[in-house]
């Protein structure tokens, strides 16, 4: 929100729309820019349509809401009104993966990446740390294309600025195993690797399009690729598999993430991440097994 506030001071084209989300967070922006902010109410279809209209009138909108309602309630609006027109609109979705696990299946989100990445033109970001949020904002606020930013509830910090958008978080030169993760799962993978010291961790903060220049050398170097994500297989794992197949690469690819199902019983993020092997100890256990 701080980055958005700064960007709105810099760029008078930015118009901030939100779907009744952000209590005790967005107020300073609304106070400073009453003519470029709007709470549309609980009406996400309307919000996306309005954002497209604002582009027609010369603005660069940022739409903010809980990820589920921002991306899935209004999927057709995103398709037709944003992506068909290739409109530079940022969809900033709060809550990712099992962040809202105790609020249950209507509020946690594990299929947004798979859902949105089918759309032409859209850029998909899943920042993994406070520093990578800055790097993502630096790119997204150029407003070149439609963008979805999946903002997890995490304050993980690397203690340094990103060297690039996608990068190693931890590099183990002797290992043949590379964990690729995005969003909040980078922290889990990092903690796991810090304990076991038998694999490397690479953060993909931009899921679509994948950075082929960055990824190709990794696939040549590491034989075993483990994708760790709080999304169904339709997310980054699917993109990596497609990338490998299209480039005729023969790596072994593994997935750690949720089964394609909706939970019957609730659980907080740690509980559900534990269930699907996403916690550090489970990641280590999985990797020990594939290393043999």
């Amino acid at each position, binding site marked *: 929100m701080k980055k958005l506030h700064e960007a709105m001071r810099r760029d008078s084209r930015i118009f901030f729309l939100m779907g009744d989300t952000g209590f005790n967070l967005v107020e300073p922006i609304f106070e400073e820019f009453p003519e470029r902010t709007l709470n549309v109410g609980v009406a996400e279809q309307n919000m996306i349509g309005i954002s497209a209209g604002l582009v027609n*009138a010369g603005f660069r909108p940022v739409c903010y809401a809980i990820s589920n309602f921002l991306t899935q309630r209004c999927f057709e609006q995103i398709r037709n009104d944003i992506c068909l027109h290739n409109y530079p609109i940022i969809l900033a979705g709060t809550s990712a993966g099992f962040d809202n696990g105790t609020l249950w299946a209507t509020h946690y989100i594990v299929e947004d990446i798979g859902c949105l990445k089918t759309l032409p033109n859209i850029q998909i970001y899943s920042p993994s740390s406070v520093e990578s949020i800055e790097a993502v904002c630096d790119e997204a606020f150029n407003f070149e294309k439609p963008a979805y930013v999946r903002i997890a509830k995490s304050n993980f910090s690397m203690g340094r600025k990103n060297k690039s958008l996608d990068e190693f978080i931890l590099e183990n030169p002797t290992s043949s195993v590379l964990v690729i993760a995005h969003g909040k799962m980078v922290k889990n993978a990092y903690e796991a690797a810090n304990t076991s010291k038998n694999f490397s961790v690479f953060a993909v903060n931009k899921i679509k399009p994948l950075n082929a220049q960055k990824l190709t050398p990794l696939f040549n170097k590491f034989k075993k690729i483990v994708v760790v994500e709080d999304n169904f297989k339709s997310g980054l794992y699917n993109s990596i598999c497609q990338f490998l197949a299209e480039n005729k690469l023969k790596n072994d690819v593994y997935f750690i993430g949720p089964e394609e199902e909706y939970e019957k019983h609730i659980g907080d993020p740690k509980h559900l991440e534990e269930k699907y092997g996403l916690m550090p100890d489970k990641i280590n256990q999985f990797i020990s097994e594939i290393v043999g």
Partner: protein
Amino acid sequence: MNQIQTSSKQKVPNADIRRTIVEIVHNSGAAHIGSALSCIEILNAVFKNVDLQKIKSQTADRDRVILSKGHATAALYTVMYHHGLLNRDEIYSYSKNDSLLAGHSSHHVPFVEHSTGALGHGLPVSLGIAIGLKAKELPARVFVIVGDGELHEGSNWETFMLAGHLKIANLCVLIDRNNLQQVGKVEVTCSIEPLKTKLESFNFNVFESDGHNEKEIAEKITNSKNSSQPVAIICQTTKGKGISFMENNNLWHYRAPQGEEYKKALKELTS
């Protein structure tokens, strides 16, 4: 050379528009002629009201026209053609292979503000434009043509509610009340009445008009210019208007006139 026609605002007879629509739909075998014929006077009145020069120059303060009932785009494109916004080759490519002029409105066609076709999209987008114009203190208006069956889409009501709440007065919604949707009558399928009362309760300034009386529609457009509320004009129309055997007959939601039907349609429009 495909020169753009330079029709003056006064010289765009609705019968000419209807003839062109019948021709291009006949040529391509396209659908939705009935839906197109019901909104000719609405579109013609709107395009006679806006500053075409600003649209041609794409100035920031141009009025915007959005056909939310995008399946009637044969009407939009033909009215645009007769107002000099499309050339002859373009209009006669309608719904043919490799043409930009698809069976639903496309922003790839010059001067089309927004692609539509999936219903319930044009009105929210129009509200966004109207909010943007207001924020920039530009005096332009946004005209959006919505079908009556289209009002079943809930997104419209999200927009009506917010537009009325925010008093977005530069938004003008023209409702093509032809009483028919694809499968049957709107009132039988899911009633939208009392429409005027409903829209007034959403804080709209609501007018009613004979939807085939271009002069009356134009007057409502002009008279509502200084409204302090968003404007809705309910235009009572007839699906398939102007061709006796198409009027109020949903067969012509999809069918294109061929053979004797084509000749008969043209004859009716000429006589």
